[in-house]
């Protein structure tokens, strides 16, 4: 009996102590009309050995080169990160509601809050949300709450992650919040400034600015932020945390900084894992802290004066406020936050800056090498962090063809954006894509495109 430690003797002892003849008696309150179930599909148990064999066979291959970004990034994760994170004391602990029993976990979260707020150049952070998309949805709710629901419109540019937009629409379905979609400039991929200015109204609660945006381009944030603030609208920054080591972080945008910053924390030491679990982060200014969802850890003292940590501001949360909670979030992504904290501590400011610089440099090299091949075109003429969009003039499906070279070439935008033709590919490089990888990609494309003209 896997994981059930009782012997037959134990069972007998316990039944006798309770005063029943068998375990069935303990279920005697269940109405007789409710039949015991027949399990039809689930097979009988398999041993651990058989299971490992099966799951090993079913693994996707792991020797491809990966040049895909689009919201999840393949950065190197130092070995110590998960060696520490998978310790049973972190892995199998519960939410730290009993502070005295969870000082380790609470301090880790406090260190996370500190580090991520520093990275964003902002004042306060929470202990995580489910992922970048839901964090953005929560940020939108928060912005409306800050305005006490007197402003209900959100300006959303067309260059955010298309799946983030779907998640936001799901969350907002039954809320009195309107999305005002504005366009991006066709030649740069950046927010169309005229479109943005025209959209700002007295009902605009907030604007969302993705940095870098989904196409990889870096936005001119100062101007956008100042315009929003002059209009009494909040600024929600949705950012790549590694990029924030290299490019201007949200807290320093414009004259007063972004009001809320959020995003996907996966680049900070979380494996790609086919899409999850990841975690969302959210930072804000202290004056908005009571409107921020999610758990928050505070520093305090115990009754003997020793420094310690505890969950705080819990009255905003569902287990107390119930119907009036700032969010229905309960479980979040504690384990991922532990990994991210250790990642940030191991690497520090300089280590993360190096990753960012190297990622950018590799992406720039890759872009230049690929664009030197005929029939390729750089779609957006703008500075980028580590992703860019190339259009390949080809009848072959480029990404499929690259598979034959064991290369995952990127994300085909024509799958999600109707205004892009086939073979418009969002390509990413990180510090893991070293020069030999870049050469392989370049040679593969050359070969694929040459085959066509032959």
């Amino acid at each position, binding site marked *: 009996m896997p994981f059930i430690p009782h012997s037959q003797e134990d069972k007998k002892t316990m039944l006798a102590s309770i005063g029943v003849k068998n375990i069935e008696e303990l279920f005697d309150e269940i109405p007789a009309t409710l039949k015991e179930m027949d399990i039809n599909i689930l097979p009988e148990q398999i041993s651990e050995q058989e299971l490992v064999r099966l799951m090993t066979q079913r693994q996707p291959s792991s020797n491809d080169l990966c040049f895909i970004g689009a919201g999840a990034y393949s950065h190197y994760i130092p070995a110590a990160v998960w060696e520490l994170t998978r310790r049973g004391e972190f892995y199998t602990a519960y939410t730290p509601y009993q502070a005295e029993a969870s000082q380790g976990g609470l301090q880790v979260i406090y260190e996370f809050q500190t580090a991520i707020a520093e990275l964003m150049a902002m004042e306060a952070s929470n202990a995580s949300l489910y992922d970048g998309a839901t964090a953005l949805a929560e940020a939108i709710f928060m912005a409306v709450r800050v305005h*006490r629901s007197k402003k209900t419109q959100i300006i959303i540019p067309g260059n955010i992650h298309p799946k983030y937009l779907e998640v936001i629409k799901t969350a907002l379905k039954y809320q009195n919040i309107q999305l005002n979609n504005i366009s991006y400039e066709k030649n740069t991929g950046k927010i169309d400034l005229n479109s943005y200015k025209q959209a700002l109204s007295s009902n605009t609660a907030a604007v969302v600015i993705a940095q870098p945006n989904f196409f990889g381009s870096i936005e001119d944030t100062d101007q956008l932020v100042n315009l929003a603030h002059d209009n009494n609208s909040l600024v929600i920054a949705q950012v790549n945390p590694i990029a924030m080591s290299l490019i201007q972080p949200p807290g320093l945008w414009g004259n007063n900084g972004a009001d809320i910053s959020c995003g996907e924390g996966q680049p900070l030491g979380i494996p790609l894992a086919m899409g999850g679990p990841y975690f969302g982060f959210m930072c804000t200014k202290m004056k908005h802290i*009571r409107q921020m969802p999610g758990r928050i850890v505070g520093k305090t003292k115990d009754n003997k004066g020793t420094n310690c940590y505890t969950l705080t501001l*819990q*009255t*905003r949360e569902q287990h*107390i*406020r119930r119907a*009036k909670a700032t969010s229905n979030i309960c479980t979040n992504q504690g384990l991922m936050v532990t990994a991210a904290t250790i990642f940030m501590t191991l690497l520090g400011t300089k280590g993360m800056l190096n990753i960012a610089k190297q990622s950018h440099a590799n992406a720039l090299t890759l872009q230049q090498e690929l664009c030197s091949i005929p029939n390729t075109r750089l779609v957006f003429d703008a500075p980028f962090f580590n992703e860019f969009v190339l259009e390949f003039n080809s009848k072959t499906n480029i990404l499929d063809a690259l598979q034959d070279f064991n290369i995952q070439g990127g994300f085909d935008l024509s799958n999600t954006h109707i205004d892009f033709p086939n073979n418009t590919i969002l390509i990413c490089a990180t510090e893991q894509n070293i020069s030999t990888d870049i050469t392989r990609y370049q040679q593969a494309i050359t070969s694929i495109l040459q085959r066509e003209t032959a």
Partner: protein
Amino acid sequence: MANSTSELKFTKSHEWLAANNNTVTVGISQHAQGLLGDIVFVDLPSINDTIAKGDEIAVLESVKTAADVYAPVSGTIVEVNTNLESQPELINQAPEDGGWIFRIEISDTAELTTLMSFDQYQQTISEE
């Protein structure tokens, strides 16, 4: 401004009200502050807000709970106790005096007759 408890009117939801011509001062009762525990934050309403009797006007946060404060009468918020921003504990220390929360200019004096006297309020809480 000292309020004598016997002059105050009360609601079932533990608010007290002190009337002064057309303006009333509102806070929560001694009993209520004991139930809440140490108050750590007060979410005050905005001045000039128009409110109706029974509206949720303010929120009192302690560590374990968040409690709504309801408008005992309809009218307009004319003043809030800004001391509570830095000293929320005033509500625990002097709930019926220095811990007052907001003042309303009332729109319908008839509503005052729906409130309880101190004795009536004492009766209801002893039944709880």
